C-alpha cells in the first residue's frame, strides 16, 4: 500500500495552487467542482438545437441572449449512464480558454449544489484512476468533511479537439 500511495502523492506545490472557491454540482452520486472564476452563469434547461455531425456528447447549440453557444452533456462526455431530465437539470455556462481564445460553453449537469471555499490543504492531487485513462482533466480532489468533490479542470475537459466534428 505504501508503494502505491507514494507514487500517487504529488509534488505539494501543484495542489496548493488550486485553493479557492468552487461551484459544486452533481452528476448522479458524484459531486464535482468548478473554479468559480470559470463560471459565467447558471441557466435552466432549454430547447437545444441539435447540430449534425458532431460528437455524441455535443448536445447542440442554444441561444444565450443572442449569442449562440455550444452545449455539452457532461454525463455523455464522462461516459456515464444518461438519465431523465428533471427540473433540477440545468446548464452551467463556463468560460473556457482555448489556446488563448475565450469561449463560452454550456455544460448539462444533474443538479447545482453550492459554492464552497476549499482550502489548498484540503485538496489532494488526482488519484490514480486504476489505468482507466488519464486524469488530466482533474485539478484535484477536494475533501469536505466525509465527502469528496472532484475538482475539474474545465479547460481540459472541453478541449477543442473534443468538440470538433468526428471525421
Amino acid at each position, binding site marked *: 500500500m505504501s508503494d502505491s500511495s507514494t507514487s500517487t502523492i504529488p509534488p505539494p506545490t501543484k495542489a496548493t495552487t488550486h485553493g479557492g472557491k468552487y461551484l459544486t454540482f452533481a452528476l448522479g452520486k458524484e459531486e464535482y467542482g468548478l473554479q*468559480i472564476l470559470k463560471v459565467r452563469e447558471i441557466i435552466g434547461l432549454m430547447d437545444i*438545437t441539435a*447540430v449534425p455531425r458532431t460528437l455524441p456528447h*455535443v448536445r447542440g*447549440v442554444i441561444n444565450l441572449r443572442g449569442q449562440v453557444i455550444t452545449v455539452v452533456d457532461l454525463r455523455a462526455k464522462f461516459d456515464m449512464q444518461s438519465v431523465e431530465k428533471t427540473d433540477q437539470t440545468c446548464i452551467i455556462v463556463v468560460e473556457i480558454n482555448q489556446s488563448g481564445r475565450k469561449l463560452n460553453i454550456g455544460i448539462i449537469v444533474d443538479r447545482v449544489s453550492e459554492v464552497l471555499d476549499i482550502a489548498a490543504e484540503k485538496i489532494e492531487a488526482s488519484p490514480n484512476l486504476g489505468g482507466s485513462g488519464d486524469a488530466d482533466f482533474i485539478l484535484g480532489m477536494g475533501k469536505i468533511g466525509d465527502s469528496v468533490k472532484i475538482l475539474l479542470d474545465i479547460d481540459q475537459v472541453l478541449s477543442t479537439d473534443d*468538440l470538433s466534428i468526428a471525421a
Partner: protein
Amino acid sequence: MQAHDRILQDVAAATVATSADDLQGLARIHSLFEAFRAALPTSEPWTLAAASVSTDAGKIVERMILSEIADTDAAMRQIGDMTTELIGILQGIPQSTPAPITQTPIVDAPPEPGSSQPAVQPVTVKQDLIDPNDSSLVAEFVLEAGEHVEASEAALLKLDQDYTDIESINALFRAFHTIKGVAGFIRLGQIGSLAHAVENLMDLARSNSLRLNAGSIDALLKAVDLMKVMIAALDRALTSGVTPPIQPALPAMLETLHHFAHATTTSEAVGIAASDTATAEAAAVAAAAAPSPSQDPASAPTGAPAASGQSSSDSVVKVSTDRLDSLINAIGELVIAQTMVSQDVASLVPASHRVVRELTQVGKIARELQDLSMSMRMVPIHGVFQKMSRLARDLARKSGKEFELEIIGGETELDRGLVEAVSDPLVHMVRNAADHGIESPEDREKAGKPRCGHVRLRAYHQAGNVVVEIKDDGRGLNKAKILRKAQERGIVPPGKELSEQEIFKLILCAGLSTADKVTDVSGRGVGMDVVLRNVESLRGRIDIESQEGLGSTFTIRLPLTLAVIDGLVVRVGDQRYVIPITSIEQSLRPKPGQISTVRDRDEMCMVRDHLVPVVRLHQLFGVQPTHDEPTEAILVIVQSGSLRCSLMVDELLGQQQVVIKSLGDGLGPISGVSGGAILGDGNVCLILDAPGIILSASGQ
C-alpha cells in the same frame, strides 16, 4: 494568493449566487467591491484600471439597492461582466511585469545597445517607448494617429492633382502636427521624429517657401506608409508588451524629407520638378521668404481634427465595436422577445384590445430600434475607394500608362464587415483594369481615344444591394478568343452555344484565369476566380459587360449587410433549417415519373429536362423524417454556379429574415451548415450551406 485576488473570488461567487432582488446579497457585493478597492496595491500599473472598474461596479450595485435600476437582471449581468474584466486586469499582470520597461526610467533611455545609430540623420531618433502607465493613452494614440494618417493620405492624393491646394497642405500640416505633439507627449521617439520632419516640410509648403512636386509627393506618400508601419508596430507592441522595433528605413526617410526641405533654401531642384516655371518660381519665392514659422491665417489650433475633404460632423462619439455588437445583439433579442409576447397575447382567448394595441406600439418601436442598430453597422465606402486611388496612382507610375481614376459615390454606406471584405476584390479589379484593360498611350491614340485612360469606380444602393461598378474605357474583352481558350481547356464542350454573358463569365473560372495566353488578349486573368469566390462568399455576384475596343464594366452586387439574410425555413422531422433564398431556384413536389434511381440508391429528379440529384437532408443530418418518399415530400432545388441539386424536406414553413450567428467558437466548420440563425421563437436554427451540400453531392 493576494488579498485582492481572494476578494475578487468572493465577488465572483457572490454575483453568481445572488439574485437581482436579494438586497442583502447586493449589500454584500457592494462591500466586497469596496474591500477589493481597499486591498489593491497602490503602485502597480494596473491599479488605476482595476480601481475604476470596481468603483463603477460598486456604483451599479448601489443603484440596484436603491431600486434606481429597472432592469436588474441586465445590471446583474453587467456586474458579472465587470468582475470578469477585473479578473482579466489582474491576470494581465504577469504579462506586463517581465518587460523591463516597467522599472527602467523612461526619460532619455538610450536606444537598445545592439542598434547602431546612423550618423547621417539630422535628428536624433529615440526609440518608441511605452510606459505601462500610458498604455491607454498609447492605445488612443494608435487609433487617432491611424485616422490622421488616413486623412493625410487623402490630402496627399488631392495635392497630387493640384500642388498648390492650400487646404490639403493645411490638413497635412495639422495631421502631422497633432501626431508629433501627442507622440512627444507619450515619448514615441521614432514616430515623433518622422511626424516632425513631415510637419517641417508642410510648414515650408504652406508658407510658400516650398513648391510641392511629384517627387516630394512621392516622398511624402512613402513617409505616410512608413508612419502606418510604425503605428502598426506600436499597436502590436502594445498588446505584446515589448518595445517596438527600430525602423531601419526611418533614417533614410528623414534624410529624404530633410533634403526636400533644404532644397528650397538652396534653390536646388530635387526630384522631378513639376515644370520649369514652377521650379523657378519656387526658387524665387524661397529666396524671398526664409523658411520662417508661418503666419498662415488658416493655421488651426493643435489637435483640431484634420478635415479630409468630406464634411466631418463635429459631434461624433467613438464606440468600441464590441459594445456596438452587443447593443445590436441585445436589440435583436428584444425584437424576438417582443414577437414572442405578441404571439402569446394573440393566442389568449379574451385578448384585451388595449394590450394588443400597446404591444403593437412596442413592436413598432422595437423594429425602429432594430433598423437604427443596423444602420450603426454601416460605414461609408470611401475609405476603400481612397485605397484604390492610391493604388491607381502607383499603378500608373509603374506601368507607364496614363489613366485617371474617377470616384463616384464614396459616401455610399455598407456593412462594416463588408467594407473590409470588398477591398480585396476591388484591388484585383482595379489592378486588372489598369494592367490589361487600359492600353498604352500610343495604342490609345491609334485607336482614336484620348491618351489618358479613364477608370470609373462608382458605388450606389440598388434594391437592397450595394453595387460597386468598375468601368474602364480600355480595349474590352475579346469574346472569340475567350471562347476558344475555354474550349481548348475543356471548360466548355466544343460546339456549345454560349450567350455573351456566359462567355464573359468564363474569365471568372479558375482554369482560365491562370492561363497566361488569355491575359494577352483580354486581360482580367489574374485572380479573377479569387474575386468571384470572395464575392460569392459574401452572397454577392459579379456581372460583366464589355464591348470590344470600347471598354468593360464589372459590376459587383453585394447584400447591404452580412448580418441578415432572407431565408426559407424548412422542416425535416422535428428539426428546422434555413435555406438562403439567394441559392434557391424553385421548390416542387415531384410526381412519381420524375424520380429515377441509379443502383437503387442514388436518386435523380427530372426537372425541366434536367436531371437533378436528390439529397435526402434527413439522411445527411441523421434526423427521423415525416416522409420517406420523395413524392410525398418536397424538393427544394438549390444552385451554386452551374451546379444544382435538390434537397428533400418535409415541409416549407415560410420565408423570413434571419439574423446570422456563428455557431459558436466551440464547434469547428460543419459540412453542410454555414451558421446558425435565431428564429422568432428564440430558438437556434441551422442555416444550410447550399454550395457545400451541392459540391459534396456532385462529388460522389
